[in-house]
């Protein structure tokens, strides 16, 4: 494949991971980004590398593949730039899921049992074990499960480290360059028109995150990937009070839901800087970036149910981002059946940071025609949720 050129559109974490894999495979890679690298969805998440929130199935398999790859990728990147790899703040801190109701406890126990059969490490915590692991968590809980494989990264730095590695392997980066349309020859894409001129290549990767749908439309082959808004609260630095990624058992339900209205569930964790990050909300409001105090209030209330001791801690910042959402909640990884030379990698919703390295590895294998690490059929572009969807209205909800 040496000498084959690829354009990766989007320098979020998925685009950076794809650029890295392809550059290391010998592609001549150009990364095109209309803003600055890692400045949109990637910079507005919590940096989740989770297996705990996924039930048995293809997404869990991809999460497990990614979880295996992360330490390898970071170790390899560290050989080229120790500083960039250190800035990633890789922390295999583990996750703890807490159910606060009896119904939630039954559901959590059942869910964890299913995960165990799929190879996820889980550990039921009794009251004492939970209190030892998280001294500040509510005593008022019904069940808790520890997931030692869950990890966290600083997402923008992780994307920067992957991009740094891609650049070291020969990729080039063009920021401030927006893709406007496709140049096609027959059923094949041969170039993209951009705000800074024509860009030719042998293949093109749509890694535009929540804007993937918009980009695909510009290229003439719509895919149904939409934004789903999330909000995160950041507290002032406090002495350590949260030691794992701790979340409410509701979270799994909210992730899997398709509801358009507001879903909130508590996700609480500390960062190395001492701040506590508090999520999460899910709303489908298009790209409306207005702050909604009522949403932040609901997120805060859920977090306090898990950690009543945080009531006096000041929130100093809130940020919102847009997750790339696909109606069937599965990522999209593969070739576009309608336009040869175009590939899509996206639709990871809130899991893109964690799933980026696994998705990029699968893309590389697919593009090289090699056997893949796992069955990629569930992620194919040619499925009803991606191609057969109704056209998405610009705004779906206003609450």
């Amino acid at each position, binding site marked *: 494949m040496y000498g084959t050129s690829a354009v990766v559109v989007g320098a979020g974490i998925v685009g950076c991971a794809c650029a890295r894999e392809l550059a290391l495979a010998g592609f001549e890679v150009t990364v095109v980004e209309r803003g600055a690298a890692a400045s949109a969805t990637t910079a507005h998440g919590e940096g989740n590398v989770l297996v705990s929130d996924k039930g048995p199935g293809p997404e869990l398999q991809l999460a497990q593949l990614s979880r295996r790859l992360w330490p390898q990728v970071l170790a390899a990147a560290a050989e080229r730039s120790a500083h960039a790899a250190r*800035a990633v703040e890789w922390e295999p801190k583990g996750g703890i899921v807490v159910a606060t109701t009896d119904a939630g406890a039954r559901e959590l126990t059942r869910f964890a049992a299913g995960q165990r059969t799929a190879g996820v490490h889980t550990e039921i915590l009794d009251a004492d074990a939970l209190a030892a692991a998280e001294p500040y968590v509510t005593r008022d809980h019904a069940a808790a499960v520890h997931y030692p494989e869950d990890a966290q990264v600083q997402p923008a730095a992780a994307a*920067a480290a992957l991009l740094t590695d891609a650049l070291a392997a020969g990729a080039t980066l063009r*920021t401030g360059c927006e893709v406007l349309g496709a140049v096609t020859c027959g059923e094949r894409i041969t170039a993209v028109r951009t705000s800074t001129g024509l860009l030719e290549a042998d293949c093109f990767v749509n890694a535009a995150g929540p804007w993937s749908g918009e980009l695909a439309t510009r290229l003439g082959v719509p895919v149904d990937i939409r934004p789903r808004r999330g909000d995160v609260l950041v507290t002032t630095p406090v002495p350590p009070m949260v030691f794992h990624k701790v979340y409410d058992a509701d979270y799994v339900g909210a992730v899997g839901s398709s509801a358009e209205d507001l879903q909130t569930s508590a996700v609480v964790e500390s960062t190395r*800087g001492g701040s506590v990050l508090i999520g999460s909300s899910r709303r489908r409001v298009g790209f409306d970036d207005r702050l909604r105090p009522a949403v*932040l*209030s609901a997120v805060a209330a859920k977090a306090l149910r898990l950690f009543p001791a945080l009531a006096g801690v000041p929130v100093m910042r809130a940020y919102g981002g847009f997750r790339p959402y696909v109606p069937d909640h599965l990522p999209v990884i593969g070739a576009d059946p309608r336009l040869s030379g175009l590939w899509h990698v996206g639709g990871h919703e809130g899991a893109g940071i964690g799933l980026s390295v696994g998705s990029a590895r699968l893309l590389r294998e697919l593009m090289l025609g090699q056997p893949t690490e796992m069955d990629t059929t569930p992620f194919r572009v040619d499925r009803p949720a991606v191609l057969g969807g109704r056209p998405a209205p610009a705004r779906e909800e206003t609450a």
Partner: protein
Amino acid sequence: MTTRHVVVVGAGPAGLAAAEAALAAGARVTLIDSADRPGGQYHRMLPEAYGAARPERLQHGWWAFDRRRRRVLTHPRCAWWPETSVWALERPDPTEPGVPRVHVVRGPADGGRRSRLRLDPDALVLAVGAHDRVLPFPGWELPGVFTAGAAQALAKGERVVVGDRVVVAGTGPFLLPVAASLLQAGSRVLEVLEANTAGTLARGWARRPWQLAAYGGKAGELAEYTALLLRHRVPCRVGRAVVEARGDGRVEEVVTARLRADWSVVPGTERTAPVDAVCVSHGFSPQLELPVAAGCTLRSAPGGEFVAVDDDQRTSCPNVYAAGEITGIAGAPAARAEGALAGWLAAGGVPDALALRPLRRSRDQGRAFAERLAGAHPIGAAWPEWLRPETVVCRCEEADYASLCRAAGNAASRGARVAKLETRAGLGPCQGRICGPTVAELSARLTGRPAERPAEGIPAAGPHHRPIAQPIRLGELAAAPEPLPGNTESHPSM
């Protein structure tokens, strides 16, 4: 006709004037300030407990201020909300024109439970002012190094003396009242250093001198300060700056040096002086998070970015007005004129009222003064040469200059957001209010590119984007907003 409800945020010279004018125009006013007393930074009042017998000694225009304060605060249509922080402005749906909803927390910031309230006014006047801009230099994080504003606030508000031997340095006429406050509070001011050279000052101030005459009040005020400094034999030097502070655990001496017009140090002119405090000021940064949260368009001017307003102090958002230092650093008289205009018009007063003419004139003179001020006291482009790799740039997160250089040197992390997350500069409790402009300037210089503007269509993230404008405790946030207190409940617009 129902009474219009005007919310005025900030009770400094601009906000107080806005409240007074809005009341005069017949509106119901809610006046909000984070301090426990009105006056803002300019008319900072001593706490009641001090029972200052002669507050006018430290204050210009005290009596006029005092009369206005009483008129406004005791007015039956005015609700005065001290110790109240606006933590969020919630923009209405773009398809439904309306004024941003004002979310506040009320009560002492360090006290127990504050109450969370929200207001839906007919018009909003933002008069939130500015804070000190301070450039970093080696040792500026040492205890004993104060922003000039903080030193003045301590002297005026608490009668606390920051030190016995103090150097005042930086740029701008604000250095003079600061030195005067220190002298009156009992400090010994060793010298006052203006970083700009005599040439720069002369070019800025001597241009079209007849305009200055129109701004006689301000000139007279500055002349008084100068006379005071002369009486105390305080030398004022131009083209000189504090380029380093040294000390073990706190500042013990400063290094000053002569500067060229671009603020590069003239080699061999360094002098050290023993001090126990340094006060520095490099102008002011307008507090733009609320205007930005409201959706107001900003304009770029030589002194930085400000809220863009039209001749009637209207911002780009319907029924949102701006007055005072957020529209340009022009001092208290201009702020009062802008505030009065904004308040009157926000209340629905007629725009061609005769009484508005002198206000408009005064506002226009203020704008001309602001432009002149920015021209005479620019920040020299070569100031980053004072920095060393280990010099702290962001004090909250202790991010140093070396980390900024490293981030700028890597193409992958050059984006402002990535650099911010990587260096952590601007992520601390001040949320980049102090270091933001500095980091933006350094990054632009290091990468050789101007600070990036977010691409169109990508949400968020200008430097003043702080959707949580003031810290709010998690418990306060989780609680539902309380019903509005007192007589305001009966109002139809509530």
